[in-house]
């Protein structure tokens, strides 16, 4: 199997920073690290298994309705995850609430199915799906780290910035309210893309 399948999604063809897919959810669920990690895991499972299933039946799917069929399969996995979280990880399911359901609309999943799973065998499709989910999750975790630390002063809900630093307790520090709002997440995504392009010159368009 080509190494590129599982290497590219992390850096060279990262779904968020290079393909610019799934940005919407990257803005929505990155306020706290815990939510971001569960979201990343859920998306990874969904992309992996729906890619594999679509790849298994790729030769029999009628071309005219292929998007609908793919959507049904993606929705199947998303609802399964939602149901299992509700039964076995109720706290997390409550925290993520609507965003689990919204995985269906995550462009990465449909993007990978259309671009890869439809033309490849099941196993490479599974690997491609999982790798893309993880590449997406990696960026999510970075954004959530920055947003939770500077927006709430916590990581995984634990206080990191000392209470005595806060203005309320006579210190000099105040949480940055802007970081909690989605626009700041977009700015952080922009900064990550900037940094990546500065390192990887081949991503830069020719003038």
């Amino acid at each position, binding site marked *: 199997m080509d190494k590129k399948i599982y290497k590219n999604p992390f850096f060279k063809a990262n779904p968020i920073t290079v393909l610019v897919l799934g940005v919407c959810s990257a803005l929505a669920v990155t306020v706290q690290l815990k939510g971001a990690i569960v979201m990343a895991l859920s998306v990874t499972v969904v992309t992996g298994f729906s890619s594999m299933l679509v790849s298994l039946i790729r030769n029999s799917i009628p071309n005219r309705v292929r998007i609908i*069929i793919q959507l049904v399969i993606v929705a199947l996995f998303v609802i399964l995850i939602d149901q299992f979280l509700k039964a076995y990880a109720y706290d997390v399911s409550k925290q993520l609430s609507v965003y689990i359901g919204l995985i269906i609309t995550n462009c990465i999943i449909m993007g990978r199915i259309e671009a890869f799973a439809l033309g490849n065998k099941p196993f490479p499709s599974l690997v491609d799906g999982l790798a893309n989910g993880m590449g997406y999750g990696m960026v999510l975790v970075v954004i959530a780290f920055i947003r939770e630390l500077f927006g709430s002063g916590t990581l995984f809900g634990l206080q990191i910035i000392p209470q005595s630093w806060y203005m309320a307790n006579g210190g000099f520090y105040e949480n940055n309210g802007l970081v909690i709002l989605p626009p700041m997440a977009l700015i952080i995504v922009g900064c990550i893309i900037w940094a990546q392009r500065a390192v990887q010159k081949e991503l830069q368009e020719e003038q």
Partner: protein
Amino acid sequence: MKLNTNSNIYTIVYTTIVVVIVAGVLAFVSTALKPKQQENIALEKMQSLLRSARLGEDVSARDNKSEYIKDLYSKHMTNDFVLNWEGNVIEGEAFEIDLQAQYDIIKQIAAAKTPEAAQARRERLELPVFVCTIGDKVLNIFPCYGPGLWGPVWGYIAVEDDFETIYGAIFDHKGETPGLGAEIAHPPFYNQFVGKKLSRDGAFKSIAIVKGGGQASNPNGVDAISGGTITSQSLERAIAMWLNEYQAYFNIKRAAITAADNCNEECCGEETSNDESGECENEGQNHEVKEHHTK
């Protein structure tokens, strides 16, 4: 034989099969997981009720979480009952009452065009009350429920037996903005309610959730959440609407407390017949508890 995957018949048959299989899988999983999910929901409700009475705060540190909650619940939640609009106990299972359905009635009462129509709706109300006993403290826990910014917000408020002082409160929400409106579900917000009063100058006054409301000098207000204005306002409305419907019950209970106080002054100061003093000792205990709370 090579199938023509582009023919209409093939497309229709194929999609039908796929949809039926997917529906079957989902129906099976949903049925299989339902008992577990409902147990989680009931457990969540028990935990909320306990947390409103400031019990079980260490629950996340426990391994056998569900056992611990059930134990604590059966130990402390000594009673629950359903009230009608007049504050009288009616038949019903308080734990099973759907807060959303009751909220719909409360909303209809507010929207009614004539007092008669409002009254007709009010008579359909079923208001749950949960009684929690911690040592010699008896707390009455009242629910509230209403729309937030993105979805419903709800909570439980534990009131001490003077029917005035809030002992504890807890709130939750379906989908408020994380870090903003969602902060209502975190201790820095709901712990503000501890010790606040539900009355001012002898009349009922709900808790105001406003900027600068949390000053110690203000017994009827807490600080709102910056950036979560709509959630704060919605919660304030929900609390006021629900507690307002419980006022009949509050008045009955407060009248009983006043009567007990009077009895206390009249007969416990001097030696009287055995029967009466026995009665008064009980009431006197209540009185002591109340004084203790107000400290």
